[in-house]
């Protein structure tokens, strides 16, 4: 059985069901995968042909309801700090509903 609790107090990257990428410190979680993230940033990574730049929005304290969590990934802080995220471009993450 895998536990999310081993990621508590670590920097994590969360992908939500509406295809948003959130990065923050996992303060706590529960059996329903409700998450509390502190010092949360939303990274809106845009495709290379998009005129708008990739943006990082600071969000502060965030409580995400478990229904909407798709991926919780542990972030290697050293590696993450080395990347200038504003320069990063990428494809838009697809949705969760497939027909």
């Amino acid at each position, binding site marked *: 059985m895998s536990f999310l609790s081993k990621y508590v107090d670590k920097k994590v990257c969360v992908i939500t069901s509406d295809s948003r990428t959130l990065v923050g410190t996992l303060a*706590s979680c529960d059996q329903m995968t409700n998450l509390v993230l502190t010092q949360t940033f939303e990274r809106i990574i845009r495709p290379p042909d998009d005129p708008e730049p990739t943006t990082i929005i600071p969000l502060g304290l965030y409580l995400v309801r478990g229904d909407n969590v798709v991926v919780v990934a542990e972030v290697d802080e050293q590696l993450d700090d080395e990347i200038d995220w504003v320069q990063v471009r990428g494809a838009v993450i697809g949705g969760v509903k497939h027909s």
Partner: protein
Amino acid sequence: MLPLGLLTAAQGQPMLVELKSGETLNGHLVSCDTWMNLTMKEVVQTSAEGDKFWRLAECYVKGNNIKYLRVPEEVIDKAKDQQQGNRQGYGNRGDRGGSRGDRGDRGRGRGRGGGRGRGRGS
């Protein structure tokens, strides 16, 4: 501390709730429960497109409709303090439990006295 614990500690604080529909509710949290159902007051409801606004004196949000909640940073510190306060409370109760043991001995004495009393009655 658990996410729902943080939410309970946030009662009375202003917050932003985004629903699965994309609508947002900005207001003060009155109360919440284990299913994340919320009651809020002085709420500004914004449509998903961000073009329509409603002002609601009070509202009830059913928990299953919530996508996420944005809470002021101070709440987590307040919640941690509350948790510390509770733990200290349990410690005090432990001391009182010790003295309860003494009263128990005296109680047993009283019981014996009561038995004699009942005998006298019959």
